[in-house]
């Protein structure tokens, strides 16, 4: 069950040029309203996965991690919405956001069929993979492509938070073994 979500997300991101090597070539295609929408969507999708975990898990480490994800991604998204309002920018839906959502919805349906330790393992491993992919996309493509300095700052802070989640998720995976 390893990396259930990763292939879908990776394919999604790769298909829209989310690789370090193509970052510059594709950077011009993404606008700030689109970047904001992608980052916001990535947060919403992780909150949905966490809420599923909170319904299903009995493992205290997984539960704590999922609670952290809901709390932190809600905080980051609230900050993002406040900033966008201040900047008078409306997030713009786009193909990357749509594919991210579609891929995550499908994978969440797969996770929903698992139970107990199998669910915990798949969820935690997917959280590592998901954060790795999103962090890579933020670092290599989204942040370098962002024009507005305040949005760039917020995404950079978000990246540090999500890198923390990546490490935390790795610890949860290690403790499940």
């Amino acid at each position: 069950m390893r990396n259930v979500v990763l292939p879908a997300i990776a394919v999604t991101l790769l298909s829209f040029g989310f690789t370090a090597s193509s970052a510059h070539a594709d950077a011009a295609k993404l606008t700030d309203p689109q970047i904001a929408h992608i980052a916001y969507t990535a947060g919403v999708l992780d909150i949905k996965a966490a809420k599923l975990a909170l319904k299903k898990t009995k493992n205290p480490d997984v539960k704590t991690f999922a609670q952290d994800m809901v709390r932190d991604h809600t905080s980051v998204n609230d900050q993002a919405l406040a900033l966008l309002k201040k900047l008078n920018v409306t997030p713009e839906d786009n193909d990357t956001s749509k594919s991210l959502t579609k891929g995550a919805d499908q994978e969440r349906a797969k996770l929903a069929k698992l139970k107990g330790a199998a669910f915990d393992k798949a969820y935690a491993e997917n959280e590592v993979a998901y954060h790795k992919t999103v962090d890579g996309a933020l670092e290599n493509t989204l942040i370098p492509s962002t024009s507005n300095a305040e949005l760039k700052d917020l995404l950079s802070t978000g990246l540090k938070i999500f890198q923390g989640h990546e490490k935390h998720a790795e610890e949860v995976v290690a403790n499940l073994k």
Partner: protein
Amino acid sequence: MHKPFLKLIVLGMSVIILAAAAKPAAAAETIRIETKSIAFTPAKVSAHVGDTVEWTNDDFVAHTATASNGDWNIALPVHGKGSTVLKKAGKITYICKFHPNMTGEIDVR
């Protein structure tokens, strides 16, 4: 001349011992650390036993200051504070358990 001289030495030593005993210990200080942009700032501090370390969270997400040796686990709510009194000497490393990429060190002397 011998006895008074001995008395003088004893008296002198007593004064030294009393002075040492009466010397007030260095006043306990409060060392302030901020969490800023998802980092403990400063990341490394020196302190003395009896000092208080106080963390202020300037970030928009909650943090913790969690000692690696399990001695303390301090909640740092958004824009909140938390503190601990350092009880023993030695180097203590700590992390934020929500964001373990945040690390800090206190050298307690």
